[in-house]
Protein backbone atom coordinates (compact mmCIF):
# COMPACT_ATOMS: atom_id res chain seq x y z
CA UNK A 1 0.00 0.00 0.00
CA UNK A 2 1.36 3.38 -0.93
CA UNK A 3 1.53 6.33 1.42
CA UNK A 4 -1.68 8.26 1.97
CA UNK A 5 -1.86 11.96 1.24
CA UNK A 6 -4.63 14.40 2.13
CA UNK A 7 -5.42 17.01 -0.49
CA UNK A 8 -7.70 19.85 0.57
CA UNK A 9 -10.32 20.73 -2.05
CA UNK A 10 -12.19 24.02 -1.76
CA UNK A 11 -13.87 26.09 -0.42
CA UNK A 12 -12.56 28.29 -3.22
CA UNK A 13 -12.06 26.13 -6.31
CA UNK A 14 -12.40 27.04 -10.00
CA UNK A 15 -14.92 24.28 -10.70
CA UNK A 16 -17.23 25.18 -7.83
CA UNK A 17 -19.47 28.20 -8.04
CA UNK A 18 -20.21 27.58 -4.37
CA UNK A 19 -17.98 26.97 -1.38
CA UNK A 20 -17.71 23.44 -0.02
CA UNK A 21 -14.64 21.85 1.46
CA UNK A 22 -13.50 18.26 0.97
CA UNK A 23 -10.49 16.55 2.44
CA UNK A 24 -9.51 14.04 -0.24
CA UNK A 25 -7.52 11.11 1.13
CA UNK A 26 -5.39 9.86 -1.75
CA UNK A 27 -3.32 6.78 -2.44
CA UNK A 28 -1.15 7.86 -5.34
CA UNK A 29 -3.72 9.36 -7.73
CA UNK A 30 -6.75 7.47 -6.42
CA UNK A 31 -9.21 8.86 -3.91
CA UNK A 32 -9.80 6.38 -1.09
CA UNK A 33 -11.92 8.63 1.08
CA UNK A 34 -13.51 12.05 0.91
CA UNK A 35 -14.44 13.94 4.06
CA UNK A 36 -16.86 16.81 3.42
CA UNK A 37 -17.02 19.93 5.54
CA UNK A 38 -19.89 22.36 5.09
CA UNK A 39 -20.99 25.57 6.78
CA UNK A 40 -19.48 28.29 4.58
CA UNK A 41 -22.90 29.45 3.38
CA UNK A 42 -24.93 28.87 6.53
CA UNK A 43 -27.07 31.90 7.26
CA UNK A 44 -29.76 30.66 9.63
CA UNK A 45 -32.81 31.25 7.45
CA UNK A 46 -35.19 28.91 9.27
CA UNK A 47 -34.94 31.00 12.42
CA UNK A 48 -35.89 34.09 10.44
CA UNK A 49 -39.58 33.00 10.68
CA UNK A 50 -39.53 34.62 14.13
CA UNK A 51 -38.84 38.03 12.58
CA UNK A 52 -40.74 37.83 9.28
CA UNK A 53 -44.44 37.07 9.07
CA UNK A 54 -45.76 34.27 6.91
CA UNK A 55 -46.47 36.47 3.89
CA UNK A 56 -43.03 38.09 4.02
CA UNK A 57 -41.27 34.78 4.51
CA UNK A 58 -42.01 33.69 0.96
CA UNK A 59 -39.37 36.20 -0.17
CA UNK A 60 -36.91 34.67 2.29
CA UNK A 61 -37.57 31.12 1.03
CA UNK A 62 -36.90 32.33 -2.51
CA UNK A 63 -33.47 33.31 -1.32
CA UNK A 64 -32.65 29.92 0.18
CA UNK A 65 -31.17 29.27 -3.22
CA UNK A 66 -31.01 31.40 -6.35
CA UNK A 67 -31.11 28.42 -8.72
CA UNK A 68 -34.04 26.57 -7.13
CA UNK A 69 -35.60 29.90 -6.15
CA UNK A 70 -39.04 29.41 -7.67
CA UNK A 71 -39.27 25.85 -6.33
CA UNK A 72 -38.66 26.98 -2.77
CA UNK A 73 -41.32 29.69 -2.93
CA UNK A 74 -43.68 27.10 -4.44
CA UNK A 75 -43.00 24.51 -1.74
CA UNK A 76 -43.37 27.08 1.02
CA UNK A 77 -46.59 28.50 -0.41
CA UNK A 78 -48.13 25.03 -0.84
CA UNK A 79 -47.17 24.18 2.74
CA UNK A 80 -48.63 27.36 4.25
CA UNK A 81 -51.81 27.03 2.13
CA UNK A 82 -52.24 23.53 3.53
CA UNK A 83 -51.65 24.89 7.03
CA UNK A 84 -54.33 27.56 6.66
CA UNK A 85 -56.73 25.58 4.48
CA UNK A 86 -56.49 27.90 1.48
CA UNK A 87 -57.71 26.55 -1.88
CA UNK A 88 -55.91 28.18 -4.79
CA UNK A 89 -57.46 28.46 -8.25
CA UNK A 90 -56.70 25.91 -10.97
CA UNK A 91 -55.17 28.54 -13.20
CA UNK A 92 -52.70 29.50 -10.46
CA UNK A 93 -51.81 25.83 -9.90
CA UNK A 94 -51.13 25.38 -13.62
CA UNK A 95 -49.04 28.55 -13.84
CA UNK A 96 -47.00 27.42 -10.83
CA UNK A 97 -46.17 24.08 -12.43
CA UNK A 98 -45.37 25.72 -15.79
CA UNK A 99 -42.92 28.08 -14.09
CA UNK A 100 -41.51 25.32 -11.93
CA UNK A 101 -40.75 23.27 -15.03
CA UNK A 102 -39.19 26.32 -16.70
CA UNK A 103 -37.01 26.65 -13.59
CA UNK A 104 -36.01 23.02 -13.96
CA UNK A 105 -34.98 23.69 -17.56
CA UNK A 106 -32.91 26.70 -16.53
CA UNK A 107 -31.30 24.71 -13.73
CA UNK A 108 -30.48 21.71 -15.93
CA UNK A 109 -29.14 23.86 -18.78
CA UNK A 110 -26.97 25.69 -16.26
CA UNK A 111 -25.74 22.35 -14.96
CA UNK A 112 -25.03 20.94 -18.43
CA UNK A 113 -22.88 24.02 -19.07
CA UNK A 114 -21.01 23.63 -15.79
CA UNK A 115 -20.44 19.95 -16.56
CA UNK A 116 -18.99 20.83 -19.96
CA UNK A 117 -16.75 23.39 -18.24
CA UNK A 118 -15.81 20.69 -15.71
CA UNK A 119 -14.40 18.41 -18.37
CA UNK A 120 -12.81 21.24 -20.28
CA UNK A 121 -15.27 21.78 -23.16
CA UNK A 122 -15.52 25.56 -22.99
CA UNK A 123 -17.52 25.99 -26.22
CA UNK A 124 -20.22 23.61 -25.03
CA UNK A 125 -20.45 25.53 -21.75
CA UNK A 126 -21.04 28.75 -23.66
CA UNK A 127 -23.69 27.17 -25.90
CA UNK A 128 -25.60 25.64 -22.98
CA UNK A 129 -25.67 29.00 -21.21
CA UNK A 130 -26.70 30.76 -24.41
CA UNK A 131 -29.74 28.47 -24.67
CA UNK A 132 -30.48 29.00 -20.98
CA UNK A 133 -30.90 32.72 -21.69
CA UNK A 134 -34.04 31.85 -23.70
CA UNK A 135 -35.64 30.57 -20.50
CA UNK A 136 -34.40 33.55 -18.48
CA UNK A 137 -35.86 35.87 -21.13
CA UNK A 138 -39.26 34.25 -20.55
CA UNK A 139 -38.91 34.87 -16.79
CA UNK A 140 -37.91 38.47 -17.34
CA UNK A 141 -40.70 39.09 -19.83
CA UNK A 142 -43.40 37.73 -17.54
CA UNK A 143 -42.18 38.69 -14.07
CA UNK A 144 -39.41 41.26 -14.47
CA UNK A 145 -36.78 39.15 -12.71
CA UNK A 146 -34.22 36.81 -14.20
CA UNK A 147 -33.33 34.42 -11.38
CA UNK A 148 -35.35 35.53 -8.37
CA UNK A 149 -38.74 36.74 -9.50
CA UNK A 150 -41.26 36.60 -6.65
CA UNK A 151 -44.01 35.19 -8.85
CA UNK A 152 -45.34 32.61 -6.42
CA UNK A 153 -47.08 33.80 -3.28
CA UNK A 154 -49.31 32.36 -0.57
CA UNK A 155 -52.72 32.32 -2.26
CA UNK A 156 -51.67 31.79 -5.85
CA UNK A 157 -49.56 33.34 -8.54
CA UNK A 158 -48.82 37.06 -8.51
CA UNK A 159 -48.79 37.66 -12.25
CA UNK A 160 -51.72 37.23 -14.59
CA UNK A 161 -50.20 35.57 -17.64
CA UNK A 162 -52.38 35.75 -20.73
CA UNK A 163 -53.02 32.72 -22.94
CA UNK A 164 -51.23 34.50 -25.81
CA UNK A 165 -48.11 34.90 -23.68
CA UNK A 166 -48.26 31.23 -22.75
CA UNK A 167 -48.59 30.25 -26.41
CA UNK A 168 -45.57 32.46 -27.13
CA UNK A 169 -43.60 30.65 -24.42
CA UNK A 170 -44.40 27.27 -25.98
CA UNK A 171 -43.34 28.55 -29.43
CA UNK A 172 -40.03 29.76 -27.97
CA UNK A 173 -39.44 26.42 -26.28
CA UNK A 174 -40.15 24.54 -29.51
CA UNK A 175 -37.45 26.57 -31.25
CA UNK A 176 -35.13 25.91 -28.33
CA UNK A 177 -35.79 22.18 -28.58
CA UNK A 178 -34.16 21.93 -32.02
CA UNK A 179 -31.04 23.81 -30.96
CA UNK A 180 -30.90 21.87 -27.73
CA UNK A 181 -30.84 18.55 -29.59
CA UNK A 182 -27.47 19.51 -31.14
CA UNK A 183 -25.96 20.17 -27.71
CA UNK A 184 -27.49 17.00 -26.31
CA UNK A 185 -26.04 15.00 -29.19
CA UNK A 186 -22.54 16.31 -28.45
CA UNK A 187 -22.91 15.59 -24.74
CA UNK A 188 -24.16 12.07 -25.24
CA UNK A 189 -22.43 10.90 -28.41
CA UNK A 190 -19.08 12.67 -28.67
CA UNK A 191 -16.33 10.11 -28.05
CA UNK A 192 -14.05 12.40 -26.03
CA UNK A 193 -16.95 13.49 -23.82
CA UNK A 194 -17.94 9.86 -23.34
CA UNK A 195 -14.42 8.84 -22.44
CA UNK A 196 -14.52 11.30 -19.54
CA UNK A 197 -17.88 10.15 -18.20
CA UNK A 198 -18.56 6.48 -18.90
CA UNK A 199 -17.80 4.28 -15.88
CA UNK A 200 -16.66 7.21 -13.68
CA UNK A 201 -18.09 7.50 -10.15
CA UNK A 202 -20.38 4.48 -10.36
CA UNK A 203 -23.21 3.97 -7.83
CA UNK A 204 -25.33 0.79 -7.97
CA UNK A 205 -29.09 0.73 -7.46
CA UNK A 206 -28.75 -0.97 -4.05
CA UNK A 207 -26.18 1.55 -2.91
CA UNK A 208 -28.39 4.42 -4.11
CA UNK A 209 -31.31 3.09 -2.07
CA UNK A 210 -29.11 2.48 0.95
CA UNK A 211 -27.80 6.07 0.84
CA UNK A 212 -31.33 7.51 0.32
CA UNK A 213 -30.25 9.37 -2.75
CA UNK A 214 -32.85 11.58 -4.46
CA UNK A 215 -33.46 13.31 -7.77
CA UNK A 216 -31.62 12.77 -11.06
CA UNK A 217 -28.64 11.41 -9.09
CA UNK A 218 -30.80 8.49 -7.87
CA UNK A 219 -32.72 8.12 -11.14
CA UNK A 220 -29.39 7.63 -12.95
CA UNK A 221 -28.89 4.59 -10.71
CA UNK A 222 -32.30 3.27 -11.80
CA UNK A 223 -34.23 4.28 -8.65
CA UNK A 224 -37.72 5.37 -9.69
CA UNK A 225 -38.07 8.27 -7.26
CA UNK A 226 -39.82 11.41 -8.40
CA UNK A 227 -42.16 13.57 -6.32
CA UNK A 228 -44.03 14.56 -9.46
CA UNK A 229 -45.51 11.05 -9.43
CA UNK A 230 -47.57 12.10 -6.38
CA UNK A 231 -49.54 14.47 -8.59
CA UNK A 232 -49.53 17.46 -6.24
CA UNK A 233 -50.88 20.59 -7.91
CA UNK A 234 -51.26 20.51 -11.70
CA UNK A 235 -49.00 17.47 -11.99
CA UNK A 236 -52.10 15.41 -11.19
CA UNK A 237 -53.72 16.62 -14.44
CA UNK A 238 -50.96 15.34 -16.72
CA UNK A 239 -52.14 12.57 -19.05
CA UNK A 240 -49.10 10.48 -18.18
CA UNK A 241 -45.93 10.94 -16.23
CA UNK A 242 -42.97 8.58 -16.22
CA UNK A 243 -39.75 9.50 -14.40
CA UNK A 244 -36.66 9.55 -16.62
CA UNK A 245 -34.46 6.62 -15.62
CA UNK A 246 -31.11 5.19 -16.60
CA UNK A 247 -29.39 2.07 -15.31
CA UNK A 248 -25.82 3.23 -15.92
CA UNK A 249 -25.16 4.65 -12.44
CA UNK A 250 -22.10 6.57 -13.67
CA UNK A 251 -21.44 10.21 -14.64
CA UNK A 252 -22.66 9.50 -18.17
CA UNK A 253 -26.01 8.20 -16.89
CA UNK A 254 -26.49 11.30 -14.70
CA UNK A 255 -25.85 13.51 -17.70
CA UNK A 256 -28.20 11.40 -19.82
CA UNK A 257 -31.03 11.68 -17.27
CA UNK A 258 -30.78 15.47 -17.03
CA UNK A 259 -30.48 15.88 -20.79
CA UNK A 260 -33.75 13.96 -21.25
CA UNK A 261 -35.47 15.76 -18.36
CA UNK A 262 -35.11 19.08 -20.18
CA UNK A 263 -37.09 17.62 -23.10
CA UNK A 264 -39.61 16.13 -20.66
CA UNK A 265 -40.11 19.58 -19.10
CA UNK A 266 -40.86 21.09 -22.52
CA UNK A 267 -43.50 18.37 -23.06
CA UNK A 268 -45.08 19.02 -19.64
CA UNK A 269 -45.23 22.78 -20.29
CA UNK A 270 -46.80 22.29 -23.75
CA UNK A 271 -49.42 19.93 -22.35
CA UNK A 272 -50.35 22.23 -19.45
CA UNK A 273 -50.54 25.31 -21.68
CA UNK A 274 -53.03 23.40 -23.87
CA UNK A 275 -55.16 22.46 -20.88
CA UNK A 276 -54.92 25.60 -18.71
CA UNK A 277 -58.34 26.76 -17.45
CA UNK A 278 -59.35 30.43 -17.36
CA UNK A 279 -59.93 32.29 -14.11
CA UNK A 280 -58.37 34.31 -11.34
CA UNK A 281 -54.78 33.67 -10.24
CA UNK A 282 -54.90 34.93 -6.64
CA UNK A 283 -57.32 34.20 -3.82
CA UNK A 284 -57.46 36.55 -0.83
CA UNK A 285 -55.49 35.39 2.20
CA UNK A 286 -56.87 36.43 5.59
CA UNK A 287 -56.10 35.58 9.19
CA UNK A 288 -53.21 33.78 10.81
CA UNK A 289 -52.25 30.09 10.98
CA UNK A 290 -53.90 28.42 13.98
CA UNK A 291 -51.96 27.63 17.11
CA UNK A 292 -50.52 24.13 16.89
CA UNK A 293 -51.59 23.52 13.28
CA UNK A 294 -49.00 21.61 11.27
CA UNK A 295 -48.59 20.93 7.57
CA UNK A 296 -46.05 19.31 5.34
CA UNK A 297 -45.55 18.87 1.64
CA UNK A 298 -42.96 17.58 -0.79
CA UNK A 299 -41.82 18.86 -4.14
CA UNK A 300 -39.53 17.63 -6.91
CA UNK A 301 -36.85 20.28 -7.19
CA UNK A 302 -34.40 20.18 -10.11
CA UNK A 303 -32.02 18.35 -7.76
CA UNK A 304 -34.55 16.00 -6.19
CA UNK A 305 -37.05 15.72 -3.40
CA UNK A 306 -37.48 18.74 -1.15
CA UNK A 307 -39.56 18.55 2.00
CA UNK A 308 -41.37 21.47 3.66
CA UNK A 309 -42.84 21.54 7.15
CA UNK A 310 -44.55 24.43 8.88
CA UNK A 311 -46.22 24.92 12.23
CA UNK A 312 -48.46 27.80 13.31
CA UNK A 313 -48.73 29.48 16.70
CA UNK A 314 -51.77 31.70 16.25
CA UNK A 315 -49.76 34.81 15.37
CA UNK A 316 -48.69 36.14 12.00
CA UNK A 317 -45.30 34.52 12.51
CA UNK A 318 -44.92 30.77 12.07
CA UNK A 319 -43.67 28.75 15.04
CA UNK A 320 -41.43 26.64 12.81
CA UNK A 321 -40.49 26.38 9.18
CA UNK A 322 -38.36 23.45 8.15
CA UNK A 323 -36.95 22.64 4.72
CA UNK A 324 -35.05 19.50 3.85
CA UNK A 325 -33.27 19.99 0.56
CA UNK A 326 -32.14 17.43 -2.03
CA UNK A 327 -28.41 18.11 -1.84
CA UNK A 328 -28.25 17.44 1.89
CA UNK A 329 -29.69 14.00 1.04
CA UNK A 330 -27.17 13.49 -1.73
CA UNK A 331 -23.95 14.36 0.09
CA UNK A 332 -23.54 10.76 1.33
CA UNK A 333 -23.97 9.61 -2.27
CA UNK A 334 -21.38 12.12 -3.45
CA UNK A 335 -18.83 10.81 -0.94
CA UNK A 336 -19.58 7.24 -2.08
CA UNK A 337 -19.24 8.21 -5.76
CA UNK A 338 -15.87 9.82 -5.04
CA UNK A 339 -14.23 6.68 -3.69
CA UNK A 340 -11.84 5.03 -6.15
CA UNK A 341 -11.93 7.81 -8.73
CA UNK A 342 -8.76 9.53 -9.92
CA UNK A 343 -7.94 12.96 -8.53
CA UNK A 344 -8.38 14.53 -11.98
CA UNK A 345 -11.97 13.23 -12.14
CA UNK A 346 -12.96 14.61 -8.72
CA UNK A 347 -14.34 17.97 -9.97
CA UNK A 348 -16.52 16.21 -12.50
CA UNK A 349 -17.89 13.63 -10.07
CA UNK A 350 -18.78 16.44 -7.65
CA UNK A 351 -20.52 18.29 -10.47
CA UNK A 352 -22.56 15.30 -11.58
CA UNK A 353 -24.52 15.22 -8.32
CA UNK A 354 -25.41 18.85 -9.12
CA UNK A 355 -24.61 20.08 -5.61
CA UNK A 356 -26.52 23.08 -4.33
CA UNK A 357 -24.70 24.18 -1.22
CA UNK A 358 -26.89 27.22 -0.56
CA UNK A 359 -29.92 24.92 -0.28
CA UNK A 360 -28.05 22.47 1.91
CA UNK A 361 -26.83 24.98 4.45
CA UNK A 362 -29.58 27.61 4.28
Amino acid at each position, binding site marked *: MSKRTVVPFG*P*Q*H*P*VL*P*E*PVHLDLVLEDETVVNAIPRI*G*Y*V*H*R*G*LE*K*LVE*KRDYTQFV*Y*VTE*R*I*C*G*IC*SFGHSLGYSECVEKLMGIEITDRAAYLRVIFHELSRMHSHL*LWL*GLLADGFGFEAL*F*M*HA*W*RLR*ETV*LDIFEEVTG*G*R*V*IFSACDVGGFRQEVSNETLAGIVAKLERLRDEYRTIAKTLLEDSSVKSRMVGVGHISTDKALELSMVGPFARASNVATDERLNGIGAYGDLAAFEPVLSDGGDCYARCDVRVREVLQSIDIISELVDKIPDGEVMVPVKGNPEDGAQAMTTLEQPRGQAFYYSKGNGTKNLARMRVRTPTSQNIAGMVAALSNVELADVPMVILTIDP*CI*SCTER
Partner: protein
Amino acid sequence: MSNVGKSPWIIHYDGSSCNGCDIEVLAALTPLYDAERFGVVNTGNPKHADIFVVTGGINDQNAPVVKQIYDQMLEPKVVVACGACACGGGVYQTCYNILGGVDTVIPVDAYVPGCAIKPESILDAVIAGVGILDEKAKAMKMNPADKDRSEKDASTGAHASVADVDDGTNADAE
Protein backbone atom coordinates in the same frame (compact mmCIF):
# COMPACT_ATOMS: atom_id res chain seq x y z
CA MET B 1 -14.52 52.32 -23.58
CA SER B 2 -11.30 54.22 -24.20
CA ASN B 3 -10.63 54.32 -20.47
CA VAL B 4 -10.23 50.54 -20.28
CA GLY B 5 -6.47 50.18 -20.51
CA LYS B 6 -6.11 46.53 -19.63
CA SER B 7 -7.82 43.16 -19.54
CA PRO B 8 -9.05 42.70 -15.99
CA TRP B 9 -8.97 39.14 -14.72
CA ILE B 10 -11.50 38.40 -12.04
CA ILE B 11 -11.67 35.89 -9.23
CA HIS B 12 -15.10 35.07 -7.89
CA TYR B 13 -15.95 33.83 -4.41
CA ASP B 14 -19.39 33.04 -3.02
CA GLY B 15 -19.44 34.38 0.55
CA SER B 16 -22.80 33.23 1.80
CA SER B 17 -24.89 34.13 -1.17
CA CYS B 18 -27.99 32.27 -2.35
CA ASN B 19 -26.38 31.51 -5.77
CA GLY B 20 -28.59 34.04 -7.50
CA CYS B 21 -25.76 36.55 -7.85
CA ASP B 22 -23.19 33.82 -8.56
CA ILE B 23 -25.02 32.50 -11.58
CA GLU B 24 -25.46 36.08 -12.79
CA VAL B 25 -21.70 36.66 -12.45
CA LEU B 26 -21.19 33.57 -14.62
CA ALA B 27 -23.95 34.68 -16.99
CA ALA B 28 -22.06 37.95 -17.48
CA LEU B 29 -19.18 35.90 -18.91
CA THR B 30 -21.33 33.89 -21.35
CA PRO B 31 -22.34 34.82 -24.93
CA LEU B 32 -25.31 37.14 -24.30
CA TYR B 33 -23.40 39.61 -22.10
CA ASP B 34 -19.94 38.46 -23.15
CA ALA B 35 -17.63 40.15 -20.68
CA GLU B 36 -14.72 38.60 -22.56
CA ARG B 37 -15.00 41.32 -25.19
CA PHE B 38 -13.53 43.61 -22.53
CA GLY B 39 -10.81 41.05 -21.85
CA VAL B 40 -12.45 39.84 -18.65
CA VAL B 41 -11.36 36.31 -17.79
CA ASN B 42 -12.57 34.33 -14.79
CA THR B 43 -9.57 32.77 -13.06
CA GLY B 44 -9.39 30.43 -10.09
CA ASN B 45 -5.99 31.64 -8.96
CA PRO B 46 -5.98 34.67 -6.62
CA LYS B 47 -2.46 35.58 -7.74
CA HIS B 48 -3.59 35.93 -11.35
CA ALA B 49 -6.57 38.12 -10.53
CA ASP B 50 -6.95 41.90 -10.56
CA ILE B 51 -10.55 42.16 -9.43
CA PHE B 52 -12.09 40.21 -6.55
CA VAL B 53 -15.81 39.71 -7.13
CA VAL B 54 -17.51 38.69 -3.87
CA THR B 55 -21.15 37.72 -3.61
CA GLY B 56 -23.05 37.17 -0.39
CA GLY B 57 -22.51 38.30 3.18
CA ILE B 58 -19.86 37.30 5.67
CA ASN B 59 -20.15 34.71 8.43
CA ASP B 60 -17.60 33.46 10.95
CA GLN B 61 -16.58 30.50 8.84
CA ASN B 62 -16.05 32.25 5.52
CA ALA B 63 -14.47 35.45 6.90
CA PRO B 64 -10.94 33.93 7.01
CA VAL B 65 -11.41 32.50 3.49
CA VAL B 66 -12.40 35.86 2.01
CA LYS B 67 -9.54 37.54 3.86
CA GLN B 68 -7.04 34.94 2.66
CA ILE B 69 -8.05 35.26 -0.99
CA TYR B 70 -7.76 39.05 -0.67
CA ASP B 71 -4.32 38.80 0.94
CA GLN B 72 -3.10 36.39 -1.75
CA MET B 73 -4.00 38.82 -4.54
CA LEU B 74 -1.16 41.10 -5.59
CA GLU B 75 -1.34 44.90 -5.56
CA PRO B 76 -2.98 46.76 -7.14
CA LYS B 77 -6.30 45.01 -6.55
CA VAL B 78 -9.95 45.97 -6.55
CA VAL B 79 -12.82 44.43 -4.59
CA VAL B 80 -16.33 44.47 -6.04
CA ALA B 81 -19.17 43.58 -3.64
CA CYS B 82 -21.91 42.06 -5.81
CA GLY B 83 -25.51 42.15 -4.65
CA ALA B 84 -27.44 43.38 -1.65
CA CYS B 85 -25.98 40.73 0.69
CA ALA B 86 -22.38 41.56 -0.17
CA CYS B 87 -23.13 45.28 0.23
CA GLY B 88 -24.65 45.03 3.69
CA GLY B 89 -26.23 41.67 4.50
CA GLY B 90 -29.36 42.11 2.38
CA VAL B 91 -32.34 39.96 3.24
CA TYR B 92 -30.19 37.96 5.68
CA GLN B 93 -29.08 41.04 7.61
CA THR B 94 -30.82 39.95 10.81
CA CYS B 95 -29.86 36.27 10.58
CA TYR B 96 -27.86 35.00 13.55
CA ASN B 97 -25.00 33.74 11.40
CA ILE B 98 -24.42 36.85 9.28
CA LEU B 99 -21.82 39.41 10.36
CA GLY B 100 -22.67 41.86 7.59
CA GLY B 101 -21.42 42.88 4.17
CA VAL B 102 -18.03 42.12 2.65
CA ASP B 103 -16.64 45.40 4.01
CA THR B 104 -16.69 43.90 7.52
CA VAL B 105 -13.49 41.98 6.63
CA ILE B 106 -11.86 43.59 3.59
CA PRO B 107 -11.95 47.06 2.00
CA VAL B 108 -14.49 47.30 -0.84
CA ASP B 109 -13.99 49.57 -3.87
CA ALA B 110 -17.30 49.15 -5.69
CA TYR B 111 -20.76 48.20 -4.47
CA VAL B 112 -23.26 46.64 -6.90
CA PRO B 113 -26.85 46.82 -5.68
CA GLY B 114 -29.65 44.43 -6.57
CA CYS B 115 -31.19 41.16 -5.46
CA ALA B 116 -30.28 39.36 -7.59
CA ILE B 117 -27.92 41.64 -9.47
CA LYS B 118 -28.26 42.01 -13.20
CA PRO B 119 -25.36 40.97 -15.43
CA GLU B 120 -25.34 44.47 -16.92
CA SER B 121 -24.57 45.99 -13.53
CA ILE B 122 -21.73 43.50 -12.97
CA LEU B 123 -20.19 44.58 -16.28
CA ASP B 124 -20.61 48.18 -15.17
CA ALA B 125 -18.86 47.50 -11.87
CA VAL B 126 -15.99 45.58 -13.45
CA ILE B 127 -15.40 48.39 -15.96
CA ALA B 128 -15.49 50.91 -13.11
CA GLY B 129 -13.09 48.61 -11.25
CA VAL B 130 -10.57 48.89 -14.10
CA GLY B 131 -10.56 52.67 -13.61
CA ILE B 132 -9.88 52.24 -9.90
CA LEU B 133 -7.18 49.70 -10.74
CA ASP B 134 -5.43 52.22 -12.99
CA GLU B 135 -5.54 54.86 -10.26
CA LYS B 136 -4.10 52.43 -7.73
CA ALA B 137 -1.34 51.43 -10.16
CA LYS B 138 -0.44 55.10 -10.64
CA ALA B 139 -0.39 55.70 -6.90
CA MET B 140 1.97 52.76 -6.52
CA LYS B 141 4.40 54.24 -9.00
CA MET B 142 4.49 57.44 -6.95
CA ASN B 143 5.35 55.41 -3.86
CA PRO B 144 8.91 53.97 -4.19
CA ALA B 145 8.35 51.35 -1.48
CA ASP B 146 5.54 49.78 -3.46
CA LYS B 147 7.52 50.00 -6.66
CA ASP B 148 10.43 48.04 -5.13
CA ARG B 149 8.01 45.36 -4.11
CA SER B 150 6.43 45.05 -7.51
CA GLU B 151 9.87 44.83 -9.16
CA LYS B 152 10.75 42.06 -6.75
CA ASP B 153 7.57 40.22 -7.70
CA ALA B 154 8.45 40.51 -11.36
CA SER B 155 12.04 39.38 -10.91
CA THR B 156 11.03 36.26 -8.99
CA GLY B 157 8.63 35.46 -11.81
CA ALA B 158 5.73 35.08 -9.40
CA HIS B 159 3.48 37.45 -11.29
CA ALA B 160 4.05 40.14 -13.86
CA SER B 161 2.71 42.83 -11.61
CA VAL B 162 0.05 45.10 -12.98
CA ALA B 163 2.12 48.19 -12.18
CA ASP B 164 4.91 46.90 -14.41
CA VAL B 165 2.64 45.94 -17.24
CA ASP B 166 1.20 49.43 -17.04
CA ASP B 167 4.53 51.15 -17.51
CA GLY B 168 4.12 51.27 -21.27
CA THR B 169 0.45 52.05 -21.47
CA ASN B 170 0.44 54.85 -18.93
CA ALA B 171 3.65 56.53 -20.08
CA ASP B 172 1.67 59.46 -21.50
CA ALA B 173 -0.08 60.11 -18.24
CA GLU B 174 3.14 60.62 -16.31
